């Protein structure tokens, strides 16, 4: 009897939960009131030509209430002192899932990517209806490619680059300027016919864009060879901004902020996607549909992304790839073993930049329009977030992260049903970047090492074992 009482009373006596939880939640609520008070409680609006204030006490009360009750609920459940701490260490759910599905996951994802247009057409019940899904696929694959390109610089060589968007811009403007250039058009018109350059521009400019971006990678990489870590990040950020500002201000060359419009579209290796007798549809005996071009673009970016992945995987086995990874682990040891760190760093910058240039060229041909607006720091931040969220250096992780981030951003665009809850003034697309920023912070706190936290070693003795991501250094720049 006595034993029984002691047992039942014990949990209640150990820690009083409600009082401290309530007090803590109250403090959190007060802090939230201080944080949200000025910016949510008041709104600056223009009244009769002068700035005045509007009051939003109910919204403020809702926000503070959410913080207070959320914190109280968490204090009573997850953060309760009586709850047994989880003793689970070692591989997480994602790691175990990754190891179990390891061999099968890459071919499965690849097959899905190749069959995606067919799946989209089948599920949407028609070629034209599937346009949205295929466009989304193109967007995701563009970011997969950019992520893989940046992964060479950040994940393999350990050089933190915050200005990657510069190379994307170089690639896009290379194509835009060359394809719309009148002298080049006239030159080829005299040799091969009037439509030659419009039809073939993309295929000539694609390698050019890669080469130009690679050269710019070296030009921008050369001065920063001595810099490390955060300094390198800031200088690359500055370079990215300088290139964008030059694109805006050098109006004679780039047409400034207005951008370059009516860039020639992609062709099926010289055969244009139009309704004419020489068009793709007529030559292949298909009924004309504007979707042919979109599906073709999907396969172009898929091929480009796979090329990036393939080259990266192969490079990792070459001396230069091993030098990159060695550089990431320990630069001083590298140097003392006779690795030329200058050429190693420059080759990493140039290779990563080259793939950024390819992706930029593809961006220009898909959109048919480029302007400096598309190459802001937010894009660099997004690509870097994809690489870090995917787990730096992990190819499959970067692909999954790109799909999750871009898919998630796209889903936020479609939150139209929220209008029924919050009224017609509510514009969900405004909240996209807000949620993106919040998610970046939350993911970093939840999983600082990214979703896939195991790595395949490049070199191994006897058998290949997965290595925990914690053991991989992130490089000092």
């Amino acid at each position, binding site marked *: 009897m006595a034993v029984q009482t002691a047992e039942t009373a014990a949990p209640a006596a150990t820690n009083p939960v409600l009082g401290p939880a309530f007090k803590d939640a109250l403090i959190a609520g007060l*802090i939230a009131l201080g944080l949200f008070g000025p910016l949510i409680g008041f709104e600056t609006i223009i009244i009769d030509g002068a*700035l005045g204030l509007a009051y939003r006490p109910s919204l403020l009360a809702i926000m503070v209430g959410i913080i207070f009750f959320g914190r109280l609920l968490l204090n009573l459940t997850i953060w309760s002192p009586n709850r047994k701490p989880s003793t689970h260490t070692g591989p997480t759910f994602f790691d175990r899932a990754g190891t179990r599905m390891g061999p099968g996951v890459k071919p499965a994802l690849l097959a899905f990517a190749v069959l995606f247009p067919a799946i989209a057409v089948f599920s949407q019940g028609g070629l034209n209806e599937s346009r949205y899904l295929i466009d989304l696929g193109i967007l995701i694959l563009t970011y997969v490619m950019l992520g893989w390109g940046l992964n060479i610089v950040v994940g393999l060589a350990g050089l*933190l680059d915050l200005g990657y968007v510069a190379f994307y811009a170089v690639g896009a403007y290379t194509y835009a300027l060359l394809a719309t250039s009148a002298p080049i058009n006239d030159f080829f018109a005299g040799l091969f016919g009037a439509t030659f350059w419009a039809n073939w521009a993309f295929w000539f400019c694609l390698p050019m864009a890669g080469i130009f971006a690679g050269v710019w990678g070296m030009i921008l990489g050369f001065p920063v060879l001595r810099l490390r870590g*955060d300094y390198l990040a800031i200088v690359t950020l500055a370079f990215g901004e300088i290139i964008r500002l030059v694109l805006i201000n050098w109006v004679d060359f780039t047409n400034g902020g207005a951008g370059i419009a009516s860039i020639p579209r992609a062709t099926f290796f010289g055969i244009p996607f139009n309704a004419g007798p020489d068009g793709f549809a007529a030559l292949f005996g298909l009924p004309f549909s504007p979707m042919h071009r979109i599906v073709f673009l999907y396969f172009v970016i898929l091929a480009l992304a796979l090329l990036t992945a393939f080259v990266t995987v192969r490079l990792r086995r070459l001396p230069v790839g091993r030098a990159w990874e060695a550089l990431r682990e320990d630069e001083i040891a590298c140097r003392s073993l006779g690795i030329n760190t200058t050429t190693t760093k420059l080759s990493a910058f140039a290779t990563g930049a080259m793939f950024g240039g390819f992706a930029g060229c593809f961006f220009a041909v898909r959109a048919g329009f480029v302007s400096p607006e598309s190459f802001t720091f*937010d894009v660099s*931040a997004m690509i870097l977030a994809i690489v870090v969220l995917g787990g730096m250096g992990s190819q499959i992780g970067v692909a999954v992260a790109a799909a999750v981030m871009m898919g998630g951003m796209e889903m936020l665009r479609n939150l139209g049903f929220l209008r029924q809850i919050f009224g017609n003034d509510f514009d969900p697309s405004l909240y996209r*970047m807000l949620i*993106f*920023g919040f998610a970046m912070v939350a993911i970093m706190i939840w999983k600082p090492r990214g979703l896939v936290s195991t790595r395949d070693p490049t070199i191994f003795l006897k058998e290949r074992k997965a290595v925990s991501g914690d053991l991989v250094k992130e490089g000092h720049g």
Partner: protein
Amino acid sequence: MEIFVQQLINGLTLGSIYGLIAIGYTMVFGIIGMVNFAHGDVFMVSAFIALICFLLVTTVMGITSIFLALAIVLVVAMVFTSLLNWAIERVAYRPLRGSFRLAPMISAIGMSIFLANFVQVTQGPRNKPIPPMVTDVIVLMDNGSYQVTLAWKQVIIMAITAILLAGFWYLVQKTSLGRAQRACEQDRKMAALLGINVDHTISLTFVIGAALAAVAGTLYLMYYGVANFADGFVPGVKAFTAAVLGGIGSLPGAVLGGLLIGLIETFWSAYFSIEYKDVAAFSILAITLIFMPQGLLGRPEVEKV
């Protein structure tokens, strides 16, 4: 000559604002070795808090004395911005202390995007203009065609900056808090062993940085008379440039760097091209880091194996 003197005055005014922001960067970098990417946006938020407080004070409470209003706005902006930065450090950076080096930086970039868009969502994307607070000017030189003027608001900016920097210098050099802060900057582990509450000191560093940024935000609002949600990024990068130019981790360096960046920017705009003034500031950042990474007054970094 007249144009030169006028640009000198404008440059020093702008430089004071950059210097105040730069101290926040340099102190945080000195103590936890991270570039606090969100600091520029904290500055922008403080300008908005000052704007709202100014409207409350003048239109609702009906205070007409501009100096009293300015004093109230300054204090309120400092308090709320400090609270904000304290909360940011607590939520976004402290859990990542001791994690791998990139993590706090990514978190700070996310926080910067969050803050800018939070202000955009809650206050709207348009410019928020306020009527000029102080309009009187002193004519210093007049050669008939060109007047060199020193506006009272420029005097206020420089005076407040000077007073605050003196107080801040006293805080860091002479008080026990400042000693704790400098100790943590030199060796965090050793400071903790000697009984300094490191977490507390780091929090206070963020609070002080935010308070100075709030002063900068208020003065910026008073000087330009406009606030916009996107105004955090570029002044933030320029203030970071100032911190690097002066030698990151060095407090007098941050002020010196801020003044230099302000002067370079105004002279560049006056004598070369106004379109490329941001390019000039960014180029200085790159050039300083490449040729003189320790900055003007900083200690050279020793590479240890």
